[in-house]
């Protein structure tokens, strides 16, 4: 049985091409229907800003990556997607690749957790669109198991790898209980929003937003269940905040050394964490000299990000080992998919002969002799089938070469003409 797919990612293509290939959720649904129509029996489609992955079980043996690429080109109406822009994966390699992608080993940001949720969403979409079947589900289960083990046995997801999360890491080294703390976000742009969402996800006590445009501040405050403070007022209230994050496009400092000095005096030494992620900076960096003030800008937080990324890189070999183990297990199962029906058919075939032959002599021998003959026939067939059954099962369990498994099961099917014999439904495995 085959499992193939293509990957268009940050290694193979430019950002322009990746954008051109990108499939929105609606497009993914439509494209799944295209794939179902003659290309894949089952599979899944994953598309993010960094990659588009199309994987599945081909409808017939003639399907190769060329048909997948052609359908994608036609669907997205792009002409410049060539072989050099894609990676092709088959069978075991394909499953390993999916596991690597799902757990961010293949991402720009190693161990990126966002891709995991995107992958889960893709599998969910595949199930919803009835594009998922036994194999896709098994692959999904395998990747989930890889993830659980990777999280438990390695440090691949440890430490912050974005500036906002790095800031949270520093905040957690200053304060013990974030739910008792108050944060002030200066600015209501995209960066501020991200910072506010991160703080919210860490259950910070209160979030207050201030912005030159009050409405924007109110909009963000609504999103993070925070409150708004007037831009002209916030400097008088700095003493109330344990965390101050600033990300505006102001050309000059919004908060001076003396503003923070005054606030820390009013707080009787209670620490303040300041994160200035604006360029040019909003807060006078001289505030870092004040006792109990912890000032960070993008450069200082990037030190944490780099350290954590290096730590994660060191964990990649361990995760790859886990992937190999789990993919091997998955592939053994994969091989048994072809073998099990063959064993069933073979047994059915011999059992039908047994029944036929016994029927022929039933009226020619005594009941006592018939029982003896029946028992002998069963033993005979059992012994004849013992070796082929064991060998096929071993082949399924130990072999990792689909073609070999396929070749041997095909030979048996051909010799006994098993494809034309209906199974009697008995499963004697």
């Amino acid at each position: 049985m085959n499992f193939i797919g293509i990957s268009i990612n940050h290694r193979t293509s430019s950002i322009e091409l990746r954008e051109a290939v990108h499939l929105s959720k609606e497009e993914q649904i439509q494209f799944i229907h295209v794939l179902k129509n003659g290309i894949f029996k089952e599979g899944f489609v994953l598309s993010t800003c960094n990659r588009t992955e199309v994987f599945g079980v081909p409808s017939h043996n003639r399907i190769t990556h060329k048909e997948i690429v052609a359908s994608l080109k036609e669907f997205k109406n792009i002409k410049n997607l060539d072989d050099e822009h894609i990676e092709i994966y088959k069978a075991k390699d394909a499953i390993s690749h999916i596991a690597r992608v799902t757990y961010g080993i293949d991402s720009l940001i190693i161990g990126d957790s966002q891709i995991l949720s995107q992958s889960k969403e893709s599998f969910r979409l595949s199930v919803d669109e009835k594009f998922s079947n036994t194999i896709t589900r098994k692959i999904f289960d395998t990747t989930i198991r890889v993830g659980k083990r990777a999280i438990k046995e390695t440090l691949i997801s440890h430490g912050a790898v974005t500036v906002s999360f790095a800031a949270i890491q520093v905040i957690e080294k200053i304060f013990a209980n974030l739910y008792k703390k108050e944060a002030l976000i200066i600015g209501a742009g995209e960066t501020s929003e991200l910072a506010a969402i991160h703080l919210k996800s860490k259950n910070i006590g209160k979030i207050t937003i201030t912005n030159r445009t009050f409405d924007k501040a109110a909009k963000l405050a609504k999103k993070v269940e925070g409150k708004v403070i007037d831009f002209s007022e916030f400097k008088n209230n700095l003493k109330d905040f344990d965390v101050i994050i600033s990300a505006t496009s102001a050309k000059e400092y919004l908060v001076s050394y003396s503003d923070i000095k005054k606030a820390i005096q009013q707080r009787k030494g209670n620490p303040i964490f300041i994160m200035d992620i604006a360029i040019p900076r909003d807060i006078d960096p001289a505030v870092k000299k004040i006792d109990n003030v912890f000032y960070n800008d993008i450069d200082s937080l990037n030190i944490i990000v780099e350290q954590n990324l290096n730590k994660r890189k060191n964990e990649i070999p361990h995760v790859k080992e886990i992937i190999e183990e789990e993919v091997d297990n998955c592939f053994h199962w994969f091989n048994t998919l072809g073998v099990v029906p063959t064993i069933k058919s073979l047994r059915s075939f011999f059992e039908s002969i047994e029944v036929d032959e016994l029927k022929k002599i039933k009226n020619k021998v005594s009941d006592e002799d018939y029982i003896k003959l029946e028992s002998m026939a069963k033993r005979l067939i059992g012994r004849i089938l013992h070796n082929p059954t064991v060998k096929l099962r071993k082949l399924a369990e130990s072999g990792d070469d689909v073609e070999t498994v396929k070749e041997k099961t095909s030979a048996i099917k051909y010799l006994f003409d098993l494809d034309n014999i209906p199974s009697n439904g008995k499963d004697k495995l």
Partner: protein
Amino acid sequence: MLNTIHTINILLPFLYLSTFGIYLYNFLKEGNKIYNSKRIFLFITLFVHLVYLLFRTLEFDHPPIINKFEIFTVLAFSLSFAYFLLELLTDVRDTGAFILMFSLLFQVISSIFIVDTFEVKDVLRNNLLGIHVISALLGYSGFTIAAVYGGLFFLLYKNIKSNKYGLIFNRLPSLEILEKLNFYSVIIGFILLTLSIMIGFIWLPSAFPDITYSDPKLISIGIIWLIFGVGILAKVSAKLYGKKVIIFSLLGYALALGSLLVFNILVKSFHSFY
């Protein structure tokens, strides 16, 4: 029993060394393989040490506080025990190595130099004296642990201020927790020292009819009690936080240590038994 006491005396430094080693290893290495087992090691060490102290008390018929090296072993025990309680109460488990190294040091010195003393003054066999000394030692242990947490606070504070995100940053608990641990240790130390002083006031006049309250050792303890008492009061009433509080706490500890050394070594006191 004497043989058992001698065997445990040899065993204890190794137990402290193993426990310290495990705590240190866990601090240096990330991962949680020995995260839970280190507490079991500490518990076993404390249990063996407690048995040792009880056996000494029973065998020699006096609390193990009659010479410097007996005091050292009690100090090793009380430091580890105070840390153990703090770890159980707060579930902060990554700072043990910094406390246990003092226990290890005291126990090694004690194990090497300790002698078996059967003949002691009657006054030293009094149970109240035992409680008085042990609570005082536990009190000093509290102040010592507070000083260690103060030092760790400073280390982490400096690391965060100078954007150094290495081992100290990764493995120590937050500044707020270190500050709390420092404060709780001071409180526990202060309560136990107060208890010790109160017992002393009850017991001393009956044991020493010629007692004088201007005795240098009593004055030194009074100074220590005042330093920490005023510090606690100032922190609670003025709601002070951060670096300055830790500086005051460390200065208080240095002053207390200095006062203890000066009055114990340089000045003659009625309050000296060895």
